[in-house]
């Protein structure tokens, strides 16, 4: 590389400085300062963490968070996988229609969609009224302000995040393998179980991990569709800081969430690397 080109690239590297400075001051520094507060507020030590783990309520929140994230991941994989499979088999035109719907849903206001479920699932809501009039149930089901509501709402929101990457994985698989299986007389179920599923396991792992990570830290949907008795971690963090002004404890909970998120994300990246 000659001298002129080198100085040119240096000039181009400088272009990143405004963004770096901005994110450093308003993102990295505040997050770092918050994490520090978990061991300095109200005084130096690990008492915030021992409070977090020793108190029954907090332990229950942690359990709820991982439980909901796991159930949501499982549900969205179960619902999303067949759709992703169908997507790679459909003619391009139909693929595009379904993809457009998925993308649109993904980019439509999160708050608006959560609100829709709040209205749909309430005691006098459409779903309960239909079930009552059909005679499946005698009394309205408690579908919202509990973990059921959270799982329904979050599965709805996470679905595109499962289908899109799974479809990408399935599209890279060699169709000849499936053809060979079919020619040898394997039933669709057998083909799925012995060929498609094993081959798409890395994709399932990556998509599932992604959704699990996102679910762990979700705030809006659990806060609106969940009840007061079964909070999730993000809500606990927000409430501890905002209502109880207990910054130390809130920061400790935030640190737990951040570590879990980063660890799982690192795992996810390794999955993708092996895939490539």
């Amino acid at each position, binding site marked *: 590389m000659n001298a002129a080109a080198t100085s040119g*690239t240096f000039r*181009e590297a400088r272009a990143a400085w405004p*963004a770096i400075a901005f994110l450093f001051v*308003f993102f990295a520094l505040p997050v770092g300062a*918050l994490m520090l507060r978990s061991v300095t507020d109200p005084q130096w030590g690990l008492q915030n963490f021992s409070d977090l783990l020793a108190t029954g309520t907090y332990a229950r929140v942690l359990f709820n968070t991982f439980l909901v994230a796991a159930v949501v991941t499982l549900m969205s994989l179960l619902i999303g996988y067949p*759709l992703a499979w169908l997507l790679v088999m459909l003619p391009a035109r139909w693929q595009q229609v379904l993809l457009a719907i998925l993308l649109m849903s993904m980019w439509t*206001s999160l708050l608006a969609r959560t609100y829709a479920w709040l209205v749909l699932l309430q005691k*006098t809501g459409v779903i309960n009224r239909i079930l009552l009039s059909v005679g499946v149930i005698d009394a309205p089901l408690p579908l919202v302000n509990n973990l059921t509501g959270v799982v329904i709402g979050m599965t709805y929101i996470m679905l595109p995040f499962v289908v899109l990457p799974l479809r990408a994985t399935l599209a890279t698989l060699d169709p000849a393998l499936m053809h060979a299986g079919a020619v040898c007389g394997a039933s669709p179920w057998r083909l799925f179980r012995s060929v498609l599923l094993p081959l798409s396991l890395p994709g399932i792992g990556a998509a599932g991990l992604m959704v699990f990570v996102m679910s762990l830290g979700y705030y809006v949907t659990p806060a609106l569709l969940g009840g007061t008795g079964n909070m999730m971690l993000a809500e606990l963090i927000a409430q501890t*800081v905002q209502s109880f002004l207990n910054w130390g404890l809130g920061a400790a909970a935030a640190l737990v969430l951040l570590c879990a998120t980063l660890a799982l994300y690192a795992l996810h990246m390794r999955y993708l690397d092996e895939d490539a």
Partner: protein
Amino acid sequence: MILTRNRLGLFRFVLYGHAVLVMAFLLLPIIFIALLSFGSSRWMMFPPPEWTLRWYEELATDPRWAEAMWLSLRLALIVTVLSVLLGGAAAFALVRGRFAGRRVLKAFFVAPMIVPVVIVAIALYAFSLKVGLNGTFAGFVAGHLIIAVPFSVICISNSLRGFDPALEQAAAICGAGRLETLRRVTIPSIAPGLLAAAVFSFLASWDEVVVSIFMASPQLQTLPVRMWTSLRSDLTPVIAAASTLLVLASLILMALLGLSATRAGRSKMQ
């Protein structure tokens, strides 16, 4: 094609049925809310007894809602411009620059997407309380920009990677200055990436809830914050009208993006 559908026999109808159900699951709640926003029942009876524009009227005339809408719009526009500028410059450095630590820098730029937004929100909240940004317009801009910049960096980087810098050199040889090259060669070539960056930045700000809840003051609330606070007291259909507006904005912008993508694809084929 992984497997011709016909080979699947009757099983393919199971897949079709499943797809139809999932699409209904994704679409119906949004349609339902849009319908309810025109219904006359305060208790959101469905089907609505009568149709009305009353909730939209309230949205436009009630100062609390109207001001929130106006704030959201101004905010989203400013955030879009800043995000494309900051993110675009950073993308140039990432794609063109050959300096140590580029991978780390890339990770740093997408970090706000990975860190749970509630952590970003309370970290910024604590910081804002210290420096007096809380409840200010500048505070909202900073908060939304954190969320928006990663989208710009990603969209514009992807676009730049597909652009051959030799074209810039050609322009330079033909006597174009740096600015003219940028304006007449580079920017038109990466226009789809810039548009995507702008759309996603706008939507990221327009729809942002969590950071805004902490940044808001009783006097300064964005539309989602206003929705959030009234959701906690009652489910008034005005929220349905506001939701419909939010959905409409994303629909229009996504359609715009889709249109530009198809056009770009077509011009590439020719």
